[in-house]
Every structure is written in structure tokens, then in C-alpha cells.
């Protein structure tokens, strides 16, 4: 019976991810960030584009973090909950939010420092950045997969780790030595890869959820 209680609690906690909307929103932000990095990388130094892109990068990271919350709330209240029933989660205690906030701030600073300071000079910075991104997002998806037990989130974790390892390999980056700034292609492609995976997974799950609730299995 204790297992059944634990299963009920786990299922309830996992319900947040059951409709795929969270992945879809995350995927869109990752794709935007990836696109910004891909444009920023080859932009010639001193050009208007090179001056504008860092600000745009911050806008996507900060705006995306806030925007995900707003978009999620809107979609849950207007699309998901009218079909599944309304659910309101407890806000996690501040103590539990600290690692997440610390991780997000560290990631932003790491990305910024890498681009501003280390990136133009050293290949090793690239490897460290890719390792950091892979560990951070890999851990994030593994944590969500453990909490929810969803196989598709496990697949996202695997895609994140494989993408990070492949793109973190120095071979193809070294080939781009005509412009070290081209190393931004690595993180850019990384975010495009996980953004695409998240969006596809989220969209497919959302479609399934809509179909399931329309046929009356949940509603």
C-alpha cells in the first residue's frame, strides 16, 4: 500500500509534464537561444550585428525564463485544465529553489564570460563550456525524468548528453580555426538540437493529450 501511495503522489507531481506544454515552451526558448548564438558566432567583430546580439542573447535568456512561466500558466489555465480538471501546485520552498537559481545564474554567467573573455583565445574554453552545458541540461532532464518516470524525458536527457558530447569534441571545431568566434556554433547547435528534441516531444505529447481528452478518456 505504501507503494500505491507513493505512486499516487508521483503521478500527481508528474501531471505537470503530462500534457507536453512545459517541454514545448522550453523547446521554443532553446531554439531561440540557439538561433541567436548561430547568428552571433559568424558576425564580424565591430559590426552592428555583433554589437546587438549579446543584448539579444540576454533578452532571450531572461525573457525566456520569465516568458516560460507566463506562457505555461496561460496554456495550463486555458487549454489543459479545462480538459483535465484544475490543479494548483505548491510553490517550492525557497531552500529548494536555491540550487535551480544558482544553476541558472551560473549558466548565464558562464556563457557570458566564455564569450566575452575566453572564447576568442582558447580552444579549451570551448570544451569547458560544452561540458558545463551538457552536465547542466543533462542533469536537469535526468532530474525531471526521475521525478516523473516519463521515458520521453529520459530520451531528452540522452539526446542532451549525446549532443553535448558530439559537439564538445574538438575535432570539428579545430577545423574552423579561420575564425575562433565560429566556436559559438557549438553551443548554438547544442541548443538547436535540444530545442528541436523538446519541441517535437512536447508537440507530440500535447497532440496526444488533446486527442485523449477530446475522446473523453480524461475529461
Amino acid at each position, binding site marked *: *500500500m*505504501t507503494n*500505491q*501511495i507513493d505512486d*499516487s*503522489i508521483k*503521478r*500527481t*507531481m508528474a*501531471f505537470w509534464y503530462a500534457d507536453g506544454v512545459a517541454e514545448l515552451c522550453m523547446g521554443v526558448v532553446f531554439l531561440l537561444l540557439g538561433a541567436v548564438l548561430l547568428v552571433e558566432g559568424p558576425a564580424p567583430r565591430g559590426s552592428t550585428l555583433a554589437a546587438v546580439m549579446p543584448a539579444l542573447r540576454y533578452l532571450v535568456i531572461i525573457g525566456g525564463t520569465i516568458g516560460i512561466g507566463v506562457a505555461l500558466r496561460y496554456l495550463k489555465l486555458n487549454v489543459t*485544465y479545462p480538459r*483535465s*480538471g*484544475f*490543479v*494548483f*501546485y*505548491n*510553490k517550492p520552498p525557497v531552500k529548494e529553489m536555491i540550487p535551480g537559481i544558482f544553476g541558472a545564474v551560473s549558466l548565464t554567467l558562464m556563457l557570458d564570460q566564455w564569450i566575452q573573455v575566453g572564447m576568442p583565445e582558447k580552444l579549451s574554453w570551448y570544451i569547458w563550456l560544452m561540458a558545463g552545458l551538457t552536465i547542466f541540461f543533462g542533469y536537469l532532464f535526468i532530474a525531471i525524468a526521475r521525478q516523473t518516470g516519463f521515458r520521453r524525458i529520459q530520451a531528452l536527457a540522452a539526446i542532451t548528453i549525446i549532443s553535448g558530447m558530439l559537439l564538445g569534441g574538438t575535432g570539428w571545431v579545430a577545423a574552423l580555426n579561420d575564425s575562433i568566434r565560429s566556436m559559438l556554433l557549438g553551443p548554438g547547435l547544442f541548443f538547436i538540437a535540444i530545442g528541436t528534441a523538446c519541441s517535437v516531444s512536447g508537440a507530440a505529447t500535447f497532440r496526444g493529450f488533446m486527442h485523449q481528452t477530446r475522446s473523453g478518456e*480524461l*475529461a
Partner: protein
Amino acid sequence: MTEPIATLTDFDRILHSPARLTIVAILSALKEADFTYLQNESGLTKGNLSTHLLKLEEAGYIAIEKTYRGRIPLTLCRLTPHGRAAFDEYRQQMKRFVALTE
């Protein structure tokens, strides 16, 4: 009567029903949930769920608020501190019982 078996008789009778335990377990993971969600998740019929919710409310384990979202009625349920304490105690008691009988 051996100690493990005696422990069984001490279980909270309100929570020692699978349906009510499921409802409380769901609510323990949330701030609040509405009737439709609880019905979908528990698999109970409307009438059955209403009866169990009423018993839990009478015991002071849950609070029920009837409100509206637009023009649609919304019945929101949440676990009270008393209900959460009872649920935590029930889980501990269950774990002790399982440990004793294994």
C-alpha cells in the same frame, strides 16, 4: 495479539479506505485540485467521490471551496494542516507495520 497486528487496529479509520487514501495522497502533492481532476485521477464515480470528500471534510482533513471560473462552477479541494499531519502519521504507521511484518 502480536504488536504488528495490534498496530493495524490503530490505523486512522478515515484514511484506511483506499478511495479516501488515494484522494488524500493526490492532494498531499498539491496546493489544491478541483473535483474533475480528482475524479479523473482517482477513477471514482461522481457520487462516490462526493461521499468520500464529504467524509474527509467532516473529519477536518480537507477544505472544500465552491467557486466559479467565469460561469463554470469549480469545486476546489485542499488538504488542511490537520489532514496533512494525519496523512504523514498514517504513512509512518504503514511503513512501521510493513517493516515489522517483513
